[in-house]
């Protein structure tokens, strides 16, 4: 079981990585827990609102190009070979 995670913009800056592979994670929540364990508090601050503990509005997570908000949110199941992309919202120009 292996999942590819792609970081963009400020997430790339905080992790210092453009892409990592994570073994043995079965849900988006589990994946984020592992990522926070690996990359620390700064990543946690970027992902979660400290007051509510919920994922910030400024975080977009796609699994194979589909937003997790339209699936099971943080409970979205992951399968072997999935690609998870994490970035801030697109806007402006």
């Amino acid at each position: 079981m292996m999942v590819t995670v792609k970081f963009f913009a400020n997430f790339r800056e905080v992790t210092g990585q453009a892409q990592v592979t994570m073994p043995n994670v079965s849900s988006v929540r589990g994946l984020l827990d592992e990522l926070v364990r690996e990359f620390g508090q700064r990543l946690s601050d970027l992902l979660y609102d400290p007051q509510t503990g919920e994922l910030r509005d400024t975080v977009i997570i796609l699994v194979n190009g589909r937003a997790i908000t339209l699936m099971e949110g943080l409970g979205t199941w992951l399968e072997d070979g999935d690609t998870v992309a994490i970035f801030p919202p697109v806007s402006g120009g």
Partner: protein
Amino acid sequence: MFGYQGKILHVHLDTGETRVEALPEEIYRKYIGGVGLATYLIHINTKPKIDPLGPENVLAFASGPLVGTFASMGDKYVVVAKSPLTGFIGDSISSSSWSRELKRAGHDGLVIHGRAENPTYLFIDDGNVYFKEAGNIWGEDVWTAEEKIRGELEDKNVGVISIGPAGEKLVLFANIMSDGRHAGRSGLGAVMGSKNLKAIAVRGTGSIRVANLRELSKLCLGIYEKAQGPNTEKYRVEGTPTNVLSLNAHGCLPTRNWQQSTFESAEEISGAHFLKNHTVSVTACSSCPVACAHNCVVKGGPYAGAAVSLDYEGLYAMGPDCGVGDSSAIIKALELCDFYGMDSISAGVTCAWAMECYEKGLLTKEETDGLELTFGNHEALIQLIHKIAAREGIGDMLASGVKRASERLGRGSEHLAIHIKGLELPGYDIRSLKTAALGWAVAARGGCHNRSGAYEPDLKGKVDRFKAEKGRGRLVMESEGRAAVLDSLTMCKFLRACLTDFYPELAKLYELVTGFGMSGDDLRRAGERIINLKKLYNIREGWTQKDDHLPPRVMEDPVPDGVAKGSLVTRQELDLLLDDYYEAQGWTRDGTIPKEKLNELGISVGE
């Protein structure tokens, strides 16, 4: 009055006459300012079906009620006229201290009528208007023109807006520039050029009063504080070029004239790449608390010294859309657009169309004046930009924008033309953004990402972006209303995420500035009124439902790559979305505005 000056200045270039019109309070309450006010001004100052480049067309400029006050958060002006590119309403917005100067000179708006006999620039010095000979700056780029005018007027702080050589040559996507910012879209620089008007300089020394400074300060400080927080971080750190990688990951980055939706060189033109290799400073527009302008310079190689304030849209148009993955070449191409005074989105998309035509054999090498117009050939792209600005050789055809160029060339090239209503599309592949596709199709000024934020529900995952369904009409309608309010108050859209409760908070801001009672619902209604006023102008100019269209490629050529592979918008889907939108607006099934709707909104122009 508070927030407003209550007056509009009219200047007749043909007769040299000037007059000041006092507007009734009711007009300000109804149309707010900015785009609402300027749209009202073109409605009542032009006849239907005029030639956009004829002397009968007027250029209406307006500031918003917040401009020049503590609540400004980005001094902006709006310019509206009949667009030579689309034949419908052309409205464009730019940040500039010019808008503050105009208001301090005593005017909320300025209407330019007629055509000057010889190249002219105007100098509005508080209550006086001077017609100045512009022969010595005709042909100059905007930077030089601004500098020469400030030198001639012996005032380095005078506000100046001007057109470049492209506007003079009537390139139909020429823009108006000031302080390095652009009123970019719809070709209003060509309208200014058609009037022989090179520039407008303004010096204002009057004051702008606000109704409740103490309360206003408190409210604004809260917004200023949020403007330094996470909601605007992306604009401050990498700027809008950060969108390149995000859109690439979504499979929404239009590449090689929308033949692909991902770009293999995205990393080499990403926000991070520009920040590391090109950004020399990050600056703010006049009065802005965010600072998003990433000033990029080429430090070596054949384009050394080229410089531009980089935004995502121009980057998309000259980069992926033309198959160019060389960041230095993109900066050079964009610098040239600024030098000549052209909208870089329209210019890039039109060049990308020419490249595809060339690669497909629809344009011969003889017809491209010997240019090897293949995707990624940035040397050829740069030559092409020079030719467009000078209307030389193939550049003359391209200077009319992709719609007219494809109609002129024929040979099936219309299928490759990426425009809506004649306005070239910005950098979001709407084949997999179905809400945005509807927003783009119905936008009054044509293919545009700024007159609604209709991509937001798609890209934030609020809706299934691959699906067309009922309910999207209301989302687009509401998004258009919010954009109209921001464009009329003239507040930067990058600050929208800093508002806790959009309408009530902005209504409070408006009330504290102007002293006019305004509820959140009143303001929402004003936004709806302004959208209807713009649509009414288009109807008057001959709009029919077929003008709410999508480019053939979006409806017939599925996305071939990336996570959005297979996506397109079918005719059936577009019809469903349009029906839903017209119904949400309270319009007829064929998309016109019933009289009762106009009465309900209190719109009486055009009767």
